[in-house]
């Protein structure tokens, strides 16, 4: 089943074209990763999917009543705005305390409910954003560079959790990342974007595609292998120290 279907969409920032004729379908239950250099329109594509940026041309069709969980790249909360984690999770729809607690645990950040958002570390903040996205019981989870500010084992663990969330919730995942080697291993499909779709396919296909190598060089293939090797050695140990604080 197709959740979102983009047909030949183009987006401009002012007069500068950012996306040109992008065609992309997201199907239920799949993990799709968008990779691309800075300024290649990755975030813009995600913002087009949630309806935050107008299309210059093309059509975007969403499944009727599609529930989207969106985890932004970063979220700046003005220091004048006091907001606890529990209150943040209840936006825009009120959720029960137990539902909030479950979502926090699912996102790997149990005992944070009563903390102020401004007191969280970068990793905790991203997990709370993820918990909030999960509370809407999303059919499609959209993550925009969700691991910014996490170290490599931290982001690897984050993506492993996304993978297991897909299994427990059955939602599709669309994400953007710079950390090609970390993300690609977890994906069913990789889209290589540079204003337009350069190439797409399974991680292995994209990593060996000439278009991808032209953009990123061939060095990342070694890193992909390294990641696979690393995969088994980092358990969730790095989180626990935060949670006691």
């Amino acid at each position, binding site marked *: 089943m197709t959740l979102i279907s983009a047909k030949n969409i183009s987006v401009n920032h002012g007069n500068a074209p950012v996306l040109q004729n992008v065609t992309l379908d997201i199907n239920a239950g799949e993990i799709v990763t968008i990779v691309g250099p800075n300024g290649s329109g990755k975030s813009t594509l995600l913002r087009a999917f*949630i*309806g935050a940026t107008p299309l210059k041309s093309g059509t975007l069709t969403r499944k009727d009543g599609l529930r989207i969980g969106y985890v*932004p790249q970063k*979220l700046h909360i*003005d220091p*004048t*705005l*006091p907001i606890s984690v529990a209150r943040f999770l209840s*936006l*825009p729809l009120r959720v029960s305390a137990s539902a909030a607690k479950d979502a926090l645990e699912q996102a790997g950040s149990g005992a944070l409910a009563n903390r102020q958002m401004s007191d969280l570390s970068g990793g905790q903040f991203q997990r709370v954003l993820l918990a909030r996205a999960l509370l809407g019981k999303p059919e499609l989870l959209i993550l925009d560079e969700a691991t910014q500010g996490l170290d490599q084992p931290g982001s690897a663990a984050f993506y492993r959790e996304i993978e297991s969330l897909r299994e427990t919730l059955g939602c599709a995942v669309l994400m953007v990342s710079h950390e090609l080697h970390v993300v690609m291993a977890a994906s069913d499909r990789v889209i290589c974007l540079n204003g337009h779709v350069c190439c797409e396919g399974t991680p292995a296909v994209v990593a060996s595609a000439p278009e991808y190598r032209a953009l990123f060089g061939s060095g990342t293939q070694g890193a992909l292998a390294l990641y696979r090797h690393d995969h088994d050695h980092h358990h969730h140990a790095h989180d626990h120290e935060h949670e006691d604080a």
Partner: protein
Amino acid sequence: MDILDSFLVRAALAGFGVALAAAPLGCFVVWRRMAYFGEATAHASILGIALALSFSTSIFAGVLIITLLMGWTVSTLSGRGYAMDTLLGVMAHSALAIGLVAVSFLQGVRIDLMAYLFGDILAVSRFDLLIVWIGVLLVLLLLWWRWSALLTATLSNDLAYAAGIDPRREQMVLTIALGVVVAVAIKVVGVLLIAALLIIPAAAARPFAGTPERMAFIAAGIGAISAMAGLQAAYIFDTPTGPTIVCVAAACFVLGGLLNLLKGHVAG
């Protein structure tokens, strides 16, 4: 004899009402860094007053039309090559200047400009009081109805879009609420001090609040106390009422800051 026959009771009710609506709205003004927007809207309202006097219509209607027009123009033009504060600066001061020039053309009617600049709360009539409270209830209802969406859009436009909320619509809701508050507050504190009634109670409430709702309630409390105590003090010391109300609010802000500093020292 009716309790509303007393000008002091009318003044107290008007001040209380305006403070009650201005404080929670002021929280959004503070959170969204719209302080200059509030200021600009208030200044532009002088043009509304001039128009209302020229056409002999109600001040309230004139001001509301100008503030909404300004909010709409600024929202539409921003993001088209002009920064928000530049646009506001151009619009607000142009409107203020045109308003002052327009007022000078009004022959025959002697206008006490000071009453509009600094408010004239002791001259609030029964009809004024009715208008004030209609405006106050309208603003409070609007905020209560849109609260969750407003808060989401305040945190992030993209989070709002993803949840099916149009942040531009929420911005318009705030613009309308701001226009109404400015229109009803002119009589109470005057054009020059309206922004103070929006911002100071919210700023004073910040150190004592853990959630947005609590901040709004504490701000409303501080606003209401400032209005009551300011009115009382102005009566006792024979000082101008609007500025006295703002002085009390400012004192609350300083006191709150000191208390918070003290609390920090004890805890640390």
